């Protein structure tokens, strides 16, 4: 049931008249200020009115005497923010995990970084911070003294957990061949069936959000670009777009098209990486080698258009940094044609190869209701029948003018997720060819002032792994006051915890890779 025409702001206004303050046009469609306790009624009203209500992110803010928590929410046709403010001496807010289960991870992060306690969703240890971080020190608050923090000694080695009868606890990670990056998953198995998965994330937490507060906006582009090594361009683009919203500047048309070109090349190489990695996880090394061999021309194209294979650094505030030479266009087009001719081979393998189908079909099924409740994003959601794609829902850059299709599958298993990515590869090839054919002339960047006016801005884009969100608060100086980035893998890991239960241990790697984990993104 798609409630596409529900005006969610009117629904809230009618149900909670007088108890909330609604400001239209700020922080998305509307900023709704409410108090602790009433925010639960707001969310209940939203979930009842629109089933596709999902939490995008929770931003914590340190406002001096109070702490503010912004609940960024999306519905089928709107994006709005619910604000709750609590005093610093007693920062307690009631949890909304029972209304929207996908908010669990976000609340835990705000607890760790700001010290806001969510009654009903408490965690005894740390969530994104390391285990030897001292309790009671909240790094993202403004009054914390970085030089005075002393780390606790490392906690003692976990003794091998006593075996509870048939149940064995296997610890996958932090170092494990199945994972690209370190995270710990304690998997309790009964024979070969998974009973419970307990995650511990935060191994790659580098404190990028805090680091962004001590660098200028221009330097922050490069910092934010390095949140992830695979989806670099989209992080930089997201950040630049948010700053451009604060500056109220518009990127010229040619700049927008060049940005789309860079973003789609990034999406192509990321999807090829995942498709190959999935082959590796099911033991299909040959498929892995073939996919990565076909990824090389894409990397060469990225190098051609931006000067570097992995960190293109092509985005800047106001446009792109370098122009596309006309002599490069035929090369890009011929590579796209080559890639397009290789796709049928891979499609046939996915459709017909018996061992691949045996490993991927009906593995890790995520049903549509679970996908909606856990607020998953990106190809994981689209494979379960939830049609969200920020490029279509809230077009940014030149996506409003470029024709392409949303790729939706309804099976919800690993096979469907991989197929979604393969179809998205074809859509990206189409987009790139359209962009090259319709490239407007003119300038590709505008000059922007270095000081950004005070204000707040939010922005969402579609990274290869899903919806990427950024919130920036500026106080008029050259340094930002708060930068918050919510990455798609952070929202998708709860889905893994759900889909792994009841499966074989041998199904954990393909299940896991199919949601395309990027832990550098998760931990920032």
């Amino acid at each position, binding site marked *: 049931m798609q409630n596409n025409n529900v005006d969610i702001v009117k629904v809230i206004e009618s149900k909670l008249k007088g108890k909330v303050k609604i400001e239209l046009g700020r922080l998305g469609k509307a900023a709704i200020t409410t108090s602790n306790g009433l925010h639960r009624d707001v969310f209940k009203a939203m979930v009842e009115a629109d089933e596709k209500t999902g939490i995008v992110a929770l931003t914590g803010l340190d406002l001096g005497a109070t702490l503010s928590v912004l609940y960024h929410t999306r519905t089928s046709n709107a994006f709005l923010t619910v604000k709750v403010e609590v005093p610093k001496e007693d920062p307690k807010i009631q949890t909304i995990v029972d209304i929207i289960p996908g908010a669990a991870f976000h609340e835990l992060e705000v607890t760790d970084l700001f010290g806001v306690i969510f009654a009903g969703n408490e965690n005894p240890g740390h969530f994104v911070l390391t285990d030897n971080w001292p309790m009671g020190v909240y790094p993202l608050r403004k009054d914390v003294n970085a030089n005075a923090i002393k780390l606790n000694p490392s906690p003692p080695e976990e003794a091998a957990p006593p075996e509870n009868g048939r149940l064995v606890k296997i610890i996958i990670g932090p170092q494990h061949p199945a994972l690209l990056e370190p995270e710990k998953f304690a998997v309790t198995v009964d024979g070969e069936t998974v009973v419970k998965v307990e995650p511990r994330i935060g191994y790659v937490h580098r404190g990028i959000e805090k680091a962004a507060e001590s660098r200028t906006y221009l330097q922050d582009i490069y910092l934010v670009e390095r949140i992830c090594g695979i989806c670099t361009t989209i992080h930089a683009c997201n950040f630049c777009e948010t700053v451009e919203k604060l500056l109220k500047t518009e990127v010229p048309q040619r700049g927008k098209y060049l940005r789309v070109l860079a973003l789609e090349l990034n999406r192509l190489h990321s999807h090829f990486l995942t498709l190959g990695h999935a082959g590796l996880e099911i033991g299909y090394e040959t498929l892995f080698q073939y996919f990565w061999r076909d990824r090389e021309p894409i990397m060469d194209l990225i190098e051609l258009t931006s000067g570097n294979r992995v960190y293109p650094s092509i985005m800047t505030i106001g446009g792109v940094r370098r122009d596309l030479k006309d002599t490069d266009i035929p090369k890009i087009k011929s590579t796209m044609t080559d890639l397009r001719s290789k796709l049928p081979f891979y499609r046939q393998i996915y459709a017909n190869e018996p061992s691949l189908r045996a490993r991927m079909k009906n593995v890790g099924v995520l049903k549509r209701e679970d996908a909606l409740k856990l607020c998953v994003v990106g190809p994981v959601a689209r494979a379960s029948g939830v049609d969200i794609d920020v490029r279509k829902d809230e077009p940014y850059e030149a996506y409003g003018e470029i024709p392409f299709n949303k790729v*939706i599958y309804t099976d919800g298993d690993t096979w469907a997720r991989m197929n979604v990515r393969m179809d998205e590869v074809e859509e990206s090839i189409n987009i790139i060819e359209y962009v090259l054919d319709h490239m407007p002339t003119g300038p590709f960047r505008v000059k922007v002032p270095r000081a950004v006016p005070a204000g707040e801005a939010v922005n969402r884009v579609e990274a290869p792994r899903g919806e990427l969100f950024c919130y920036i608060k500026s106080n008029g100086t050259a340094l930002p006051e708060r930068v918050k980035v919510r990455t798609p893998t952070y929202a998708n890991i709860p889905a893994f915890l759900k889909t792994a239960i009841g499966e074989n241990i041998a199904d954990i790697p393909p299940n896991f890779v199919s949601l395309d984990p990027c832990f550098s993104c998760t931990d920032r």
Partner: protein
Amino acid sequence: MTKKTTKKARISPMFRRAVSHIFTKPATKQYPFVKPILPEDYRGQQVFDSKLCIGCGLCSRDCPAKAIEMVDVEGKKRPQFRLDQCIFCYQCAESCPRNAIKTSVFYELATTDKSSLVMKPQASAQKGA
């Protein structure tokens, strides 16, 4: 777009493809014997022209990695690049009002001697390093 239904089960094309690869050239480029051909605006090591530099220090201010330090060379301020800190983003080249920093395709910077990674600026009388 709904799920594509599979037609009759056909044999996976992998069988033929794997065999055909015995007869094709391998896709591996045998570096270091075969070097890749890089585009001309590849972001390799910086080329700094001391004659054009006016010592404004914008490159040092804007460097995200804090890899540029303005040092005193014969009474004038010139940037010193620390390539072991540099992330090769070339924000310095963009911020430079006189276009004194340019790209090059030289990328084989690996060395066992860290001091060779510091690009010391020459005086403006000679050509830059």
